[in-house]
């Protein structure tokens, strides 16, 4: 989650891509999520980032309702595209590369020492928060329709519409099984702790109009 540093063009690009198919940061109405991100942007995005600009101008029109918008402000790193590492820039002052840590001037010694302590503490904190390895699996699913008249494009759309935390849909293809019937073979990558094949089966077979059954064709640990 997170957009990266929203004060840089890189961060704004992530925001822009995120907003291409959304009117708001979260949900379907303006909320504190929009306020949090709006406040983190120094000025209006350029016309090149048309989606971010559209969103910015729209949220700006709610300026005098800022406090009463629904929701609770969360830290910036919790909004934005999933599957992106959170490297939101901290609101600290800029690094001063010209800082001479070995300066002989007595006045600056105390300052340099304090800064050095701060940096060591930050480095230690970062090291201790090293992310644990996440167990993932690559699964190939066979989704069978009712007959050869089933709309396979719609079926695929329904399957791909299933979204869960830890689930990423991959490539798919149609495989003929005889009598003109084709099955949808679709791959996905799942985080083992978050997604199980029974859950997937439940959700896929819920589309009763299109799906007759689902099988796991292949299951590999990554």
């Amino acid at each position: 989650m997170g957009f990266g540093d929203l004060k840089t063009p890189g961060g704004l690009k992530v925001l822009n891509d995120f907003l291409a198919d959304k009117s708001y940061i979260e949900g379907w109405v303006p909320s504190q999520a929009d306020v949090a991100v709006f406040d983190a942007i120094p000025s209006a995005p350029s016309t090149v980032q048309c989606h971010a600009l559209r969103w910015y101008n729209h949220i700006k029109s709610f300026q005098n309702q800022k406090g009463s918008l629904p929701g609770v402000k969360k830290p910036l790193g919790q909004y934005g595209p999933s599957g992106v590492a959170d490297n939101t820039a901290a609101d600290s002052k800029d690094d001063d590369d010209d800082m001479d840590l070995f300066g002989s001037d007595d006045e600056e010694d105390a300052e340099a020492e304090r800064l050095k302590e701060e940096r060591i503490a930050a480095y230690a904190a970062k090291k201790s928060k090293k992310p644990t390895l996440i167990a993932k699996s690559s699964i190939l699913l066979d989704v069978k329709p009712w007959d050869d008249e089933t709309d396979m494009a719609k079926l695929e759309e329904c399957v791909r519409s299933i979204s869960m935390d830890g689930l990423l849909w991959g490539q798919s293809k149609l495989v003929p099984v005889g009598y003109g019937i084709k099955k949808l073979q679709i791959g996905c990558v799942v985080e083992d702790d978050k997604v199980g094949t029974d859950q997937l089966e439940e959700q896929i077979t819920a589309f009763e109009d299109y799906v007759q059954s689902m099988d796991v064709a292949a299951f590999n640990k990554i």
Partner: protein
Amino acid sequence: MMALRELTQGDKKVPVLHSNNGPALVGLVTIAAHLAQEAKRPELLGGSAEHKALVQQWLEYRLTKVDGCHKDDIKTILKDLNSYLEDKVYLAGNQFTLADTLMYYGIHHIIVDLAIQEKEKHMNVTRWFDHVQHYTGVRHHLPPVVVLRNRVYTSGHH
């Protein structure tokens, strides 16, 4: 007491609103605008003068370009809406209006049949449509259109 009926005009059917106090009203936009006023929701017709005009513009577009359109016109409609909606969240201003409702109903049959690739090609229309169909009280009995969250076709257009 009000009653909504259908009247055949040539090869088209138009709605007619009968009420106890006042003349019968004919026409989709006429009736919708009248009902908005009766329900004391004038903001649905636009806030400022400019927005009122924009609402009227899109209501007119619905009647003249969308209703009864041929298959060949669909591309044009999608293109028009997509470029208009590039920098807008709603059709008129920053609030939901009748223009959004009637356009949603007007193009629902088009959007429901669009392939994933077409939906991503007209991303702004898809975004606006997904937003409106989630707006409380709009969708009613119409089936929701599924909009994928993970972009399938990587963007080659901006």
